[in-house]
């Protein structure tokens, strides 16, 4: 039976490691990263992942070892030891050191994500309006300012410039939603009654899925959207084109 017990612990050890090892090649892993902060977050994820792996292997090996030797001890008695102050201090200090390292190691990335000091100057590039169960976007237009005539409204797709800081203002009309773009590693709840700023820089042009990550009713699962990042020139062109469309539509309406 002790063979079975130790085999089970080792099966867990090997199984977990093997499963994690093969996951990336099947795509069961972080999606490609597409923002400057995403690279930092992935680095943290990997670093903490190594700590986790080391801790896991250490504990499983110790556990297997203890069970192996303890379960074959048929005669005699165990030693009535009640503890060892030195050992307690040693492992408390070791774990504390690792935790302090993780805690302080992640501070710069947290600052890059959320420190208000790093918020881009000026008004938002676009306002995101969430409602059950769709996304609406008000782009600032060519003049870069919201609340002017050249503002552009889109549904489903947000268009932003790549390679430069983008500032969004998130609002909700009804319940709590969450603006989640997995490839940008960004998530911000959109709480009604307050607006949340969100800033980031997309590294390369591309199209990224936008996911609602906070339960917002039964249509929550289908509250999909898209973020398209264009090079600055194309972005300006897109704005101009859309502004023209909007004007002509407007003049048609006037007639």
């Amino acid at each position, binding site marked *: *039976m*002790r063979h*079975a*017990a130790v085999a*089970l*612990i080792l*099966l867990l050890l090997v199984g*977990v490691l093997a499963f994690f090892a093969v*996951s990336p090649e099947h*795509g*069961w*892993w*972080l*999606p490609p990263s597409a923002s400057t902060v995403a690279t930092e*977050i992935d680095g*943290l994820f990997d670093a903490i992942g190594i700590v*986790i792996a080391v801790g*896991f292997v250490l504990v499983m090996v110790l*556990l297997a070892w*203890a*069970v192996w030797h*303890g379960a074959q*001890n048929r005669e005699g008695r*165990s*030693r*009535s*030891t009640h503890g*060892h102050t030195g050992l307690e201090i040693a492992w*408390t200090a070791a*774990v*504390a050191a690792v*935790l302090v390292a*993780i805690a302080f190691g*992640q501070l710069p990335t*947290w600052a*890059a*994500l959320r420190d*208000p000091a790093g918020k881009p100057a000026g008004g938002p590039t676009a306002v995101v309006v969430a409602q059950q169960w769709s996304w609406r976007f008000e782009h600032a237009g060519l003049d870069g300012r919201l609340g002017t005539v050249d503002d552009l409204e889109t549904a489903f797709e947000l268009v932003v410039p790549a390679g430069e800081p983008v500032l969004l203002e998130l609002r909700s009309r*009804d*319940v*709590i939603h*969450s603006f989640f773009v*997995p490839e940008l*590693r*960004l*998530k*911000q*709840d959109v709480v*009604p*009654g*307050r607006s949340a700023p969100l800033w980031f820089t997309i590294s390369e042009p591309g199209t990224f*899925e936008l996911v*609602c*990550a*906070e339960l917002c*009713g*039964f249509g*929550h*699962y289908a509250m*999909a959207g898209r973020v398209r990042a264009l090079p600055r020139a194309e972005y300006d062109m897109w704005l101009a084109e859309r502004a023209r469309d909007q004007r002509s539509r407007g003049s048609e309406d006037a007639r």
Partner: protein
Amino acid sequence: MSGARGGFWRTWIFSVDHKVVGIQYLVASASMLFLGGLLAMAIRWQLAWPWTEMPIVGQLVFGDVGRVMNPAAYTALFTMHGTAMVFFAILPLLTGAFGNFLVPLLVGAPDMAFPRLNAASFWIFLAACATFLASAFVEGGASNSGWTAYPPLATLPSAAPGSGSGQSLWLVAIVVLGVSSILNALNAVVTVVKMRAPGMTWMRLPLTAWGLFVASALQLAALPVLTAGGILQLCDRWIGTGFYTPVGLIVNSVAPDAVATTGGSPLLWQHLFWFYSHPAVYVMVLPAMGFVSDILSVNARKPVFGYKPMVWAITSIAGLGLIVWGHHMFTSGLGFEMGRAFMLSTMLIALPSAVKTFNWIATIWGGRIRLTAAMCFALGFVALFVIGGLSGLWLAATPVDVYLHDTYLVVAHFHYIVFGGTVLAIFAALHHWIPKMTGRALSETLGRWHFLGTFIALNCVFLPMHQLGIAGMIRRTADPSVYELFDRLVPLNRFVTWSAFALFAWQSLFVVNLAWSLFRGARVGRNPWEATTLEWETTSPPPHGNFDSELVISCGPYEYGDAAGERDFRPQTRSTA
């Protein structure tokens, strides 16, 4: 159990004996555990084969509505699953069932401090269960705003079908449950403080007693906050106070009633909810840690390693547990500094948990291990609690949490703690203490087989959820295939579902074992495990009043091994001579 007189009703239904109340809690909350498991099967079916006809459970759950899932039913389903499991199964199994049965026995008291109050807390609990179950059968169906019930989704009937009467009943159930748990916790705390037998000093309490005591104290400190918060949400719904509802909402193209939008804050609820519901996680794990410490020590025939650091760890987990609730709100707009502060407190709470893990390994290190079924489950707890704890490191790091928050990694993380950890510890405790409850042994062989299948299947269920979450798959989604990003996850989701069915079916082994034991199990004496603590001093099951002799406690609870005397253990009541 509580004497021959009185017949069935007096003995088993309207008894005030703490052991009967404990068993009543056990039966009621185990039934809710079964229900929660059944709901989980339906959830898994939908995630593996979205919008297809569901056999068996579909008919049970949806009946005449049709056997195919619809989005509103799915949201109600996971709301009911989470609520049933956390509030009506795991918490009452620990503090209600084991807390009531064990606390007086472990401290050497004849009963709880307030036996009638104790019976009352069970009946109030049952009323809460009934209200919760009834909420599924009202117009609009069960609450479908998640077990976290975030407003305004939960407070505005126009926002979700279940946010009508279903949500009101859900809140009533939570408030009534809160009252029951507060009474129960108060009873446990007073019993441990005031009714310990002569010589039972604090530092001679078994760790199970410590775990249950501290968990109860934690409930006393934090549960009134959620209960009051729930009453506020009811006020929002019933008399239009608007504590949680901001001004100017447009739901479904209509503005809600003017009275309901007086400028409240949805974040207020999140603070109040998590102020209890995070400590609740520790209420769900501290007693489990206690069981495991005791069972490891008994079956390794060795004292718990580092008793005082273990006590220190339990109390500091509880203390820190009160100041980490904000880590559920890293993405909710808590702000930069608050995120940093809650990150630090969260990192800090990992420390006592790690210390406990090392102490458990050191406890069995060099022991003379008996691989009883209880021991297998306890060792399983240690292995899987470690996985759940370690994945918490990713979630504690704020920038990584921003990505992982509300994904399946969180689901994997807390299921490793609550199922891999607490549920395994509950099975360990059942194997360990059922002989004391019923006077009959469970089958060790069947118990070990039950453990083996459960251990393998539960890892197959919850391990791949890490990968799902790392790939970005969100929680509470009825159909991940809406997103291209999650397309590749279909095989994983199906594997998880098959494993979940196996895990659920395998639990029948325990039911068989229990049924067999109740009627055919071998009679056990007072102390089948050769354990030192007080509950093993008395008969199995113990009589009304618990102990047939005067107790004088002369040593700590973990005198095992070569220094223990003529046998390899020294009961707590024997003189040290």
